[in-house]
């Protein structure tokens, strides 16, 4: 009995010792982490100032190296804060500094880490520097391979690196990734994809728009509309006459961003007779933006017979189409239908006060 008690108490003692060791270890690690955070907080503003001096032309890589000492990741963190803020030669200088400081090599090494947090940091850094040719050469096909990473954040960062790398063969894959169901991924990649719109218009976008999956087509259209930039393709006619009214409405929103074509204009006129209010509203906006004088009669009809949402869209479009649109509006401002008259009067008042459509 005494022996058994001794064994139990020894085991309990060992367990307590083990717990104390774990506790002690976590205390040490917490302290280390706290100290590191404090040091980062102390050096990061100075590192940022040094990097800004570097952008301004100062050759201070040695000072940066000296200040960072063993905390090279801190430099990487501060450097990637410039993402989305600097461009041109200033960005090149930062990328050059990243190479000289060995950060790019670190990121390349970290890109193979099993820890997704480390990989995320690595690809965030690589996404920043791959716009710079020498860094691009150093990173090779690492970003492309990471497009299939298991971690979504890594995939997004890798996609940004690929888009900065100017590797057109991979743009399609990134575009497909943006069309995944995750809205956050799409939002984060939309702007980056916008810069590569011309390359994407060659085959990726026509393929996406002409696919059989309506949902994907819709997402692709939303993405293109969000770019709000001129796009060099004309083949929208099929989508403007699509069975799905959501696709018709999105295609109408895209139409003003494409080169003018008789087919597209005819489809817009047809859409102004569409029973679906969303399609009519989109068509009215498109007609106004494209300054289609031929749409005045259809818009005036919409203003006479449409529902409230259509009325306002038609009136606002007519206000954008002087002189015929304005004279139609003035006439309809005294229409017997009070809703029509009110919408027309409101559009005229907006115009007088410099309101924009």
């Amino acid at each position: 009995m005494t022996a058994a008690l001794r064994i139990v108490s020894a085991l309990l003692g060992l367990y307590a010792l083990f717990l104390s060791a774990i506790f002690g270890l976590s205390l040490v690690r917490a302290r280390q982490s706290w100290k590191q955070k404090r040091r980062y907080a102390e050096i990061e503003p100075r590192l940022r100032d040094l990097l800004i001096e570097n952008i301004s032309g100062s050759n201070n890589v040695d000072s940066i190296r000296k200040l960072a000492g063993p905390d090279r990741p801190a430099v990487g963190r501060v450097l990637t804060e410039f993402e989305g803020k600097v461009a041109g030669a200033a960005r090149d200088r930062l990328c050059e500094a990243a190479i000289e400081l060995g950060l790019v090599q670190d990121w390349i090494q970290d890109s193979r880490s099993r820890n997704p947090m480390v990989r995320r940091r690595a690809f965030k850094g690589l996404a920043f520097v791959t716009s710079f040719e020498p860094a691009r050469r150093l990173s090779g096909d690492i970003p492309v391979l990471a497009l299939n990473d298991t971690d979504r954040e890594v995939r997004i960062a890798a996609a940004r690196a690929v888009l900065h790398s100017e590797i057109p063969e991979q743009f399609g894959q990134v575009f497909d990734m943006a069309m995944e169901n995750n809205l956050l991924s799409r939002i984060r990649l939309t702007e980056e994809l916008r810069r590569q719109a011309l390359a994407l218009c060659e085959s990726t976008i026509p393929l996406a728009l002409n696919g059989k999956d309506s949902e994907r087509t819709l997402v692709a259209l939303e993405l293109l509309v969000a770019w709000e930039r001129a796009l060099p393709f004309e083949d929208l006619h099929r989508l403007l006459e699509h069975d799905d009214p959501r696709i018709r409405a999105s295609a109408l929103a895209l139409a003003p961003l494409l080169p003018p074509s008789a087919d597209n204009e005819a489809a817009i006129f047809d859409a102004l007779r569409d029973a679906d209010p969303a399609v009519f509203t989109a068509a009215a906006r498109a007609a106004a933006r494209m300054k289609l004088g031929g749409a005045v009669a259809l818009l005036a009809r919409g203003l006479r017979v449409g529902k409230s949402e259509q009325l306002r869209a038609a009136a606002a479009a007519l206000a954008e189409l002087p002189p015929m649109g304005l004279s139609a509006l003035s006439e309809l401002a005294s229409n017997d239908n009070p809703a029509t008259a009110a919408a027309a009067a409101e559009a005229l008042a907006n115009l007088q006060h410099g309101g924009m459509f």
Partner: protein
Amino acid sequence: MPGEPILVVDDTPVNLKLTRILLVNEGYKVMTATTAEEALELLKSFHPHLVLTDIQLPGMDGLELTRRIRKDPNLKDLVVVALTAFAMKGDEQKAIDAGCDGYITKPIDTRTLGTRLREHLGRRNEAAAAPPPGEVAAIPEADLQALRRVFLAEGRDKSRQLLLDLDGQFSANEAAKLVHQWVGTGGLLGYTAISRLAREAEAILLDRPLDNAQLREALTALALAFSSPREARDTPIPEYVSQALAGKRVTAVGLPAAEEERLGIALERAHATATFFEAGYDSLAEDALSADLAVIFVAPEVDTCAWLDPNAPLWKKMPVVLVGSRDHLLALDPKVQGLAREFLMDSWQPEEALVRLSLAQIVKPSGGARHVPLSPLAPGARTRVVIADDDATVRALVGTTLKNFGFDIETVPDGTMALECVRRTQPDIAVLDVSMPGMDGYEVLAALRKESIPVRVMLLTARQQESDVIRGFSLGADDYVVKPFSPMELVARLKRLAAR
């Protein structure tokens, strides 16, 4: 004159080939030799009007070749032009003493080589009939690319070999000769960074005792430069730069030799000429004051010189650009900083120098023909800018950049403070972010316009949709810059805005 015979002597095959292509395209009849001995042999049967010879040649050097040409009664009318690399002090004087009619400094500027040779041939009056400078260097693109490929491949291998040799049998003299070739060829092919690094390595190789650590560092940098070269410079000078600088004379004061060379070559490309003065030269001298533009080098040893006296007549007569390290420029008397029209800092590139000099030339001083600003600047006053952005990095970046360019700045982190600050300080320009806590940039702008505060407003934002830009301008913004932005572009836009 087209058809004139020229003999080119250079031991670097790439240099020789490229110079030959350039001169043949100019219409000259060109013969080439790789050694002085071969050149002398050729001169027995070939009678060129001009000999263009590298000074450093294997065996008999270019200086000895010149002396022998001068001794030969049959060749005494020959024009001899030396190619020097500024590597050895006094190279130029040695060339003149040996009997050369002139010298051209490496790296050769391919755009002006023809003009310079024409000048040496005493046919300056025919320069007007010469093809325009943009067309002079019409080297077939395929040839140029092939030469660049060969140069980079050879350079990469040889620079790595030099690094390996450092641990074994290493001949500094042989290495210096090899590196010397890269100085000229790099510049000639447009790889200015390689040319500069080669020059630095050559200086270390010629220094005794040899500093192995420094040499290893320089050769590593060179090997890296060959592996990942910056784009070769072959873009033409922008039209506005040519227009602003062509035919202009520049007084350059106190520049170190290397910077003199860079500036000289850059100005030549823009068809401007520079006269170089020592810092101790009398700033009132007629020849210094008759230029169109002045460039003054700022260093601790010259910051008390007469040129940097804000009351010196130079400042009233012409726009002044200050050159130097950032620290020295920032340490200058603020009054002098305010008088300077532009700054060139640290490792400036020739292209940047041309842009800055042209900007200094274009933007007129406040007392001159400049448009009347909304809030007139006193002569020498600095442009005051309020920067409002909730992002500390952007505030620091814009603030530091503008300070470096002589602006007075004040930064605030939100819209409400921006409005208060503008009301209080009445700056010349407000740079506003759009998405800010409290009042956004549009609201601040609308409030400023409503209160008729005379301030120019630039919106600096990541929002780039057409509707955002239109909204900004319709609210009364004077300019709209989208993030990510180039700090240099921002400065150029602000300067233009300040001058309006």
